[in-house]
């Protein structure tokens, strides 16, 4: 394996990692604040990708408009399921929300396949030639995707660390009872949380749809990869989710040079097992965060 191939794999892995960091951040925030692993995240992504295809068919082919509308649609979807399902399960055990999130995943995916069928779609993006630096190839589209993801991630970290709303969110994550006793409105925190989850999963789905093919299993197949990297970074830690996903994205691309792409899911599974054996709290997690 010559080094140019490996560098290309690293670049590709970094782009994939950065865009999957969006849903990974969504998973970790839900785990930190609403306290359950949201298995519907992958299918929220799928919904975003199909919403983008729909937008291009009926509204506008502009990628900016498409990405905005599709993320907004997914945001509304996430808020709807929060209002109907997760809000009523808030006082029950996390298991209830977890099982319900599987149900939501099925409902979202089957609604998509009922209307759109099983055949794949494409999100139209302008065809561009890759820049070639003596064998190291960089697609401008990939750069835009990475930049969009990076800006979105920066926005959430800004929200979490520099606004009072973000401070309230972190307070709820640390200790919901204490936060509620100090007069923090859990409701507003939850609405913000689920808007971010929807917008981010949707945007992640659109970006992925531009890079790959849009199909019903798009998000579901990534669910384990996302969970693996979130556990690697430390469940509930936002910075851990982003670093974990980047690390995972790159190592996955490099590893598939050697073992083939078919075993990506298996690789994710083994990473989870190894992390849980060696360092159950993940790279950035606090011990107390492990329940």
């Amino acid at each position, binding site marked *: 394996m010559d080094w140019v191939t490996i560098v290309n794999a690293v670049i590709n892995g970094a782009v994939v990692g950065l865009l999957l960091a969006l849903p990974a951040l969504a998973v970790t925030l839900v785990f930190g604040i609403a306290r359950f692993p949201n298995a519907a995240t992958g299918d929220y992504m799928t919904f975003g990708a199909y919403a983008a295809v729909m937008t291009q068919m009926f509204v506008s082919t502009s990628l900016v408009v498409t990405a905005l509308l599709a993320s907004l649609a997914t945001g509304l979807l996430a808020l709807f399921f929060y209002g109907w399902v997760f809000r009523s399960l808030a006082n029950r055990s996390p298991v209830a929300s977890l099982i319900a999130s599987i149900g939501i995943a099925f409902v979202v995916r089957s609604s998509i396949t009922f209307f759109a069928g099983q055949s794949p779609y494409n999100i139209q993006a302008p065809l561009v030639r890759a820049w070639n630096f003596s064998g190291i190839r960089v697609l401008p589209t990939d750069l835009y995707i990475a930049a969009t993801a990076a800006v979105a991630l920066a926005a959430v970290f800004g929200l979490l660390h520099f606004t009072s709303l973000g401070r309230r969110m972190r307070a709820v994550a640390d200790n919901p009872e204490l936060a509620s006793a100090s007069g923090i409105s859990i409701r507003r925190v939850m609405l913000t949380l689920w808007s971010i989850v929807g917008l981010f999963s949707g945007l992640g789905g659109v970006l992925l749809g531009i890079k790959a093919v849009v199909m019903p299993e798009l998000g579901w197949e990534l669910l384990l990869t996302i969970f693996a990297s979130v556990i690697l970074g430390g469940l509930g830690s936002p910075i851990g989710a982003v670093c974990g996903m980047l690390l995972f994205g790159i190592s996955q691309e490099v590893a598939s040079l050697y073992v083939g792409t078919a075993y990506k899911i298996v690789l994710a*599974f083994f990473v989870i097992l190894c992390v849980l054996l060696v360092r159950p709290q993940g790279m950035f997690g606090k011990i107390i965060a492990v329940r």
Partner: protein
Amino acid sequence: MEFYLIAISITVLIYMLMASGLALQYGFTGLINFGYVGFFAIGAYTSAILSMQGVPLPLTFLAATLLAAVVAYPLGIITLRLSGDYLAIITLGFSESLRMVLQKEEWLTRGVHGIPGIPRVFDNWAGPVSGDLTLLGLLLIVNIGVFVLMRHLITSPFGRVIASIRDNEVAVSALGKNPASFKTRSLMLGSALGGLAGAFQAHYVTFISPEQFVPLITFYVWIAIILGGAGRISGIIVGTIILLTFLEGSRFLRDFVGGVSEVQLASVRFWIIGMALICTIIYRPQGLFPDKTKKRG
């Protein structure tokens, strides 16, 4: 019609075996196994591959049951000291990884082509109909046996410990019991039943392929026990019958509703399972037959 009734009854009993295993794990112990279909697959493939090599069927069934239990052991050891969410993610990952392996390792499993021509259970038993009837009888005996054993298990000291782990794990460890060890044993027992069900499935349908073992099957079984009431044996029976009525009934749906294609019908089934999961959890958390010994969750 007779054939059809026999066929449906066999399927019901195979699902009931699976539901018993999952109910032992979730209903009685509180373990969230989202990869149950993986153990079903292990059972099916183990028994199929061994019997194709000429191993007698009773031995292949035994191997299928044991191997499913053995595979559950490391999963339990790694995750059961952590919270339940981890077990859910790990088991889901396990079943999906296993499916990838079944798809890719063609030397062992013939990959996506599947394994055809698996010997039936009572093949040389005077024709297929009486063979199926005998199989039905055997499944009935196995199911009743499992229920009797489970009743004993639940009322035994072991059963009381796992029920209290489900309700309050901290209290159990405070009393000096080690919850992880009890949970591992329950996980292995339940998975063994999944493996046994898999063996029955393989030798009944005589053809297995990786696509028969998608996560949807796991959630079929989940909906059966949640709907029926997870902590009761009557819940297992009623839940399985409701599930199979729905699965078989939706087959006839197409005769009444025009303009729905086969693919769309699959989506509709999938949608109903999702909705059933959501609605039961929200509106009927204890299932149709609430377990009166369990505290409200």
